[in-house]
């Protein structure tokens, strides 16, 4: 393998990994605050992409307005989902709320199939995102350069929100002990809604960026990215925002390099992601950057 070829593979890996990282951040943040694995995250991701698509094609909004409106609407949908599917179960055993999340995921997928139809749709990609840049022998699409920038910007923004703002302090308090937080006059419902809004906003943002890179929409498009990013989040240490980014990049890197160096195993690409998940759960369940802590259930 020549240096040029390797650099191209590396670029591909960075671009795929940063996309995984971006979506994994949303996953891990909701888990970090609420100890809830939101299995509907991938479906919210799908809704965000579809909303953006319809706002551009039906409401004929300029793309950047459509994208912002879609992200805002999806955040509201996420808050609504928490009200309906998770809040009534907050004091129930954790398994109930997880099953509710799986149910919500199926419900959203099937409603989307009824509403949007099963046939895939081609996403509208503004020219600015589809320019091909040549850096020496390496070719890369502009969207692939933007995604890592967005990922790190969002990582910085989230770390700032969680660690340096009042609502972030409340989020950390709720995460540590929900009852003690309530005793400190923290409005737990508002904090949880805010967390879900933020998580869904990130999912929608990820969905739109994903569709700009792979411009194909269908009602089940969120399943695989959802699972992969869940793996990325666990790999890095679920609940740890920096860990999610690390996990995302690692997963992208593993996937691309396996195809690059072992092309005969390409058919098992997804299997490798799951094998990685199993290995992490067996060897270091808290993930690469996670802290070992006794889970109280």
């Amino acid at each position, binding site marked *: 393998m020549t240096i040029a070829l390797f650099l*191209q593979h590396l670029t591909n890996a960075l671009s795929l990994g940063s996309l995984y990282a971006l979506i994994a951040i949303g996953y891990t943040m909701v888990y970090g605050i609420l100890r809830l694995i939101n299995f509907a995250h991938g479906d919210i991701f799908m809704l965000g992409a579809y909303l953006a698509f319809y706002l551009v094609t039906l409401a004929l909004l300029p793309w950047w307005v459509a994208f912002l409106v879609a992200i805002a609407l999806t955040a509201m949908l996420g808050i609504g989902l928490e009200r309906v599917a998770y809040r009534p179960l907050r004091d129930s055993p954790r398994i109930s709320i997880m099953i509710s999340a799986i149910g919500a995921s199926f419900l959203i997928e099937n409603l989307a199939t009824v509403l949007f139809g099963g046939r895939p749709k*081609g996403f509208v990609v503004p020219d600015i995102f589809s320019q091909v840049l040549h850096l020496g022998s390496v070719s890369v699409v502009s969207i692939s350069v933007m995604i890592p920038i967005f990922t790190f910007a969002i990582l910085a923004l989230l770390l700032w929100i969680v660690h340096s703002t009042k609502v972030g302090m409340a989020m950390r308090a709720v995460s540590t002990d929900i009852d003690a937080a309530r005793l400190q006059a923290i409005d737990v419902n508002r904090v949880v809604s805010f967390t879900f809004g933020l998580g869904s906003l990130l999912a929608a943002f990820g969905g739109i960026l994903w569709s700009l890179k792979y411009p*194909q929409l*269908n*009602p089940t498009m969120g399943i695989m990215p959802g699972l992969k990013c869940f793996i990325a989040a666990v790999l890095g240490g679920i609940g740890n925002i920096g860990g999610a980014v690390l996990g995302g990049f690692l997963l992208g890197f593993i996937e*691309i390099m396996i195809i690059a160096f072992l092309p*005969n195993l390409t058919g098992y690409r997804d299997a490798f992601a799951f094998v990685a998940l199993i290995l992490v759960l067996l060897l270091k369940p808290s993930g690469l950057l996670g802290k070992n802590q006794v889970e109280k259930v």
Partner: protein
Amino acid sequence: MKIAGKTLPILLVAAVALVAGCAKTSQSSGDVIKIGVFEPMTGANAAGGAMEVEGIKLANEMYPTVTVGGKEYKIELVIADNKSDKVEAATAAQRLVDKEKVSAILGSWGSSLSMAAGPIVLDAKVPAIGLSCTNPLVTLGNDYYFRVCFIDPFQGTVMANYAYNVAGARTAVIVQEVSNDYSVGLAKFFTDNFKKLTGNDACILSVLNYNTNDQDFTAQLTTIKSLNPDVIFAPGNYTESALVMKQARELGINAPFLGGDTWETPEFIDVGKKLVEGATFSTFFAVEGATSGMSKTFVDAYKAKYSKEPAAVIALGFDGYLLAIDAIKRADSLDTVKIRDALAATKGFEGAAGSITLDANGDANKSAFIKTVKDGKFTYLTVVNP
């Protein structure tokens, strides 16, 4: 807010119940013959399924009845969604033969899905007519599976000839959807013929795999870039193929892309936009050749209803339905074994996409039409006779 918290879930459950309730309950009155439509309506192959159903429904509207034993029966279509999934496909086919008791089955788009239904129709002795599933194994050794299209050994020859003679290619790379029997089969027949034509066993520089529903192909394509082939043969599902081409062009690969019949869906162009320009593939039917008889009847009816030109698989859906009612008429019986025998004896049946004579395996021997994407449209190039 307390009320909202309690009533909203109930409302949602009610909404789901409504959606589920919409599934049509079939009544079995005496003068109805049921024909099962076994197609992917959701999932990766949904567009293919939807187009074939369009053709079947158009034919059903034009010819809604069949006379058996002097009595007129109304044809009822029972659509079973196989969800583009081999496991779901078996369940859907089982439902059609067990619960719906259909007299014949049409479909499915996607050879793998048809193959999943094969043992079930054979067991139940219900004849099935594949519309555009081209893998030879669909009908081979199965007395109850037929089809109204050509098969991949022919399609592979056609595309290998095109690559060698028209595109002037001497080397090729194969990109195949490894979980799809159609893609792997067609790639193999292309490879065999291309090797024969070039007389060079090393003319296939590499075979690269991907899975259905994959979205990122940059790793495979980067390998191709360094091999610099004359053509890339990439049969596979339409959206994946469109993404393969898009990402190839973005990586600076300029070799022409050749493929098979599955590419002819609006989604292929919709997803790939201008980056799928020049994609060339073989298919079953072209409006340009439809100047007389049933072809003209079909094209006129389709244009009148949808005000656009029909894709090839829509014509095959139309033909499959007509062949099914023709076989029922010839059998003059509702017995599925007799309908099967009538189907097997099909000779010179005039369909929208050419004349159908079924051979010993139940395959039709038909011409292939080569089309290419030009200015965002599928454009007819030439026809190749078997």
